[in-house]
């Protein structure tokens, strides 16, 4: 197997659910040795979140957990017990990076704050991911995907006028926070290696949205510089048409197609539609007129209705118009472009067998993404980590297990 970019990096992963695990997944998928620390008996709560393999709600069959924890090793450890804390500190002295995503009170209350851990290992990079950050009036507030999007992100302008604001599909706000956290982690690691000192990075999911979520960063600056408050807009067809050109989502023969166009692309549409003669028609001379837009719509909709979304995509591709079929998750998995690039990766897991997972988020020529092993079973690597790495004897492990430490 080729070398990986982070194959000499050791990560201690205390994260749960989505944001933290996605951060450490990026590190693990590019080669880092990530030890995921879970609570004995229960494990990461994401193990109890669906979708489940064959709809069987089983701790080793959560698709969410399996996806988020590829290439990690798993141990169980009770951080509330004195022995558990002692073991964690031993692991810290062996680690380059520690990532945690508890609410901000937890690590200090366990006596595992950065000051303590940084004293054990001065080169340690500690990354804390929380809803609102480690300080401020909302520090201890609870949140979920929809709350984070409402407060940090651009939910207010998502959806249409006269309806309620709309959440983005899935859990993308948390994934984005994890992605940003991976950048912060690598920045701190880079500094630690060159300058010899670790540090604590404080990641607030709210700020990852306000400073870099879908649209919000530039809408905030638009407010700061011009007082502009961006609202939800009327459905595209009812919005006042400024230009003749199609904008948005349109129905076609077998679904929907999206297109976003620039004024200079008008001739390209006519070319794609094989109706070049329209260019000279008097009614289409002013492309900023609403009447021309409505007249064009009549031709446009009936032409769309004769073609499938994939046919339309290919036609627009040929004339260099930005468009896209409105794909379902099924379409994505079967997409021929992604297949040709080998995007999906089959990963074998003892409870599910081989399943296709989303693969490399980017391709590196020297140090490629690799699926080395599937997500860990709960406590799967206890013997390896406690025995081989920390040197505990078999009898010690039995005792630790009996006392609920691991």
């Amino acid at each position, binding site marked *: 197997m080729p070398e990986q970019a982070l194959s000499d990096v050791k990560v201690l992963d205390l994260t749960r659910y989505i944001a933290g695990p996605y951060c450490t997944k990026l590190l693990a998928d590019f080669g880092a040795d990530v030890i995921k620390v879970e609570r004995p008996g229960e494990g990461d709560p994401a193990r109890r979140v669906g979708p489940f393999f064959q709809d069987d709600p089983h701790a080793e069959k959560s698709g969410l957990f399996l996806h988020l924890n590829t290439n990690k090793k798993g141990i169980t450890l009770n951080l509330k017990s004195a022995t558990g804390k002692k073991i964690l500190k031993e692991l810290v002295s062996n680690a380059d990076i520690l990532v945690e995503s508890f609410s901000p009170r937890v690590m200090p209350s366990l006596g595992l704050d950065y000051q303590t851990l940084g004293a054990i290992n001065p080169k340690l990079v500690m990354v804390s991911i929380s809803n609102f950050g480690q300080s401020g009036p909302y520090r201890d507030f609870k949140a979920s995907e929809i709350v984070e999007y409402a407060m940090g992100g651009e939910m207010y302008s998502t959806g249409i006028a006269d309806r309620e604001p709309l959440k983005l599909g899935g859990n993308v706000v948390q994934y984005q926070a994890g992605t940003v956290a991976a950048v912060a982690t690598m920045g701190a690691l880079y500094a630690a290696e060159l300058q010899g000192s670790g540090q604590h990075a404080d990641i607030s999911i709210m700020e990852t949205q306000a400073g870099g979520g879908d649209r919000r960063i530039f809408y905030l600056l638009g407010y700061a510089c011009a007082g502009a408050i961006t609202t939800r807009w009327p459905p595209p067809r009812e919005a006042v048409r400024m230009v003749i050109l199609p904008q948005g989502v349109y129905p076609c023969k077998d679904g929907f197609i999206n297109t976003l166009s620039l004024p200079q692309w008008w001739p390209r549409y006519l070319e794609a539609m094989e109706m070049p003669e329209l260019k000279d028609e008097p009614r289409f001379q002013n492309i900023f007129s609403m009447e021309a837009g409505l007249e064009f719509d009549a031709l446009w909709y009936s032409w769309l209705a004769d073609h499938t979304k994939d046919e339309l995509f290919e036609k627009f591709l040929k004339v260099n118009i930005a468009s896209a079929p409105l794909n379902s998750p099924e379409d994505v998995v079967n997409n021929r472009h992604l297949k040709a*690039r080998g995007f999906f990766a089959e990963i074998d897991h003892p409870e599910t067998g081989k399943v296709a997972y989303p693969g490399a988020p980017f391709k590196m020529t020297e140090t490629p993404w690799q699926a080395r092993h599937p997500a860990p079973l709960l406590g799967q690597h206890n013997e390896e980590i406690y025995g081989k790495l920390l040197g505990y004897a078999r009898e010690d492990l039995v005792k630790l297990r009996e006392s609920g430490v691991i």
Partner: protein
Amino acid sequence: MTKLPLEGVRVVEMTVVAAGPFGTMLLADLGAEVIRVESVHHFPPATRGWMPRPPQFLVPTTGATFGGTGGLQTYVDHWAGDRPWDRWCLFNALNRNKLSCCIDLTRPQGIDVFKRLIKTSDVFFESNAAATVEKLGITYDVLKEVKQDIIYLSMPGLGCSGPHKYCTVFGAQLQALASHTWLTRYPDLDYTTTQSLLFHCDFASGATAAFAILCALRYRNRTGKGQFIDLAQIETVIPHLGEAIMDYTMNSRVQEPIGNRHPSMAPHGVYRCYGEDRWVTLSVSSEEEWQGLCRALGNPSWCKEERFSTMAGRLENQDELDRYIEEWTCRHDHYDVMYILQKEGVPAGPVLDDRDAYHDAQLQCRGFFEVVSHREAGTHRYPGMLWKMGKTPLSIRKPPPCLGEHNDHVFKDVIGMSDDEIAELEKEQIIGGDEYLVESIF
């Protein structure tokens, strides 16, 4: 520590629209010297505006203009001025801490200057359509000959290989291709009526690209080897939708949009509050949070109804449940609902519009906004850092660059060109300049 993490790293970038600029912004925030290579002969749309000199009737006067896309179009004070490209909020939001120089890469002498710049650099980062670097003759194979250990990242929408490689796409198209548009919809309306201008993908791919560069830089420090990174923006957003993808690959199930609801939590959604277009979000994931919600609402009699006593029952009866909750929320201010519910341990938060967010107590208290003075745009409070670092605090050290603002610095100090050479190439408009020579199409 005395230095920012990436101090001493030079990144040359040619990025457009939002995804690429966001990626190099994260590197610039970490202390890298990021140099934008732009051109006064070529105006890439949606990067420094939609057109070089928009007629005033296309400059929105409020955020609601153009059916609410105003935030994508806003100029400082709604005035494009003499140098619209330096006053466009989208560009200024995403390009702080960077430098800008202008080189015409369509002429051989321009390519020559560009290669001399690459020779002094660690990273080349570009986000153009896949054909662009091929046409200009600045592919990885070429630049590797100039700088053997260069790290070269290309991030076209659909990547550098595959049958749709040359496809033109913006964030909104990538959202549709990746099935994120599919999953984002009011369940009772079809797709044509749900707004489609979502750009999560731009930010997912920008952040992922910054991560890729950091991995490659560290590997280069260790081994002396550079490399090529092929980043398809779509492939950075599909992992963000992992659950929906895995539901299909594991169970052949095609997930349908559920709007503001959640597969296993109820209540979960957005509720109307007192005032015009004011809303609050909340979610209940456990018995403990349900009891908290009931307490916060003053334990009204409906809270004790049998049908709401279990999560399964609440999921089944959420239309009625939502109506009861909204009867209460609509009598309260959206922030008040947050404080009342959070006190009882219920996740809740107001839907913040741009003004609310700009004044929000948490962002204020953590010093999120930073004052920036800009030659053409004036002085304003900008959205700031995405995270905080204990020993190497990050900040906006430089305002977003005006077009060509750092021509002299780059050509003289970075590349080491002589005054004569610079004057000669400037005369032929091969390098330098600070205003677009291409006209608007109107």
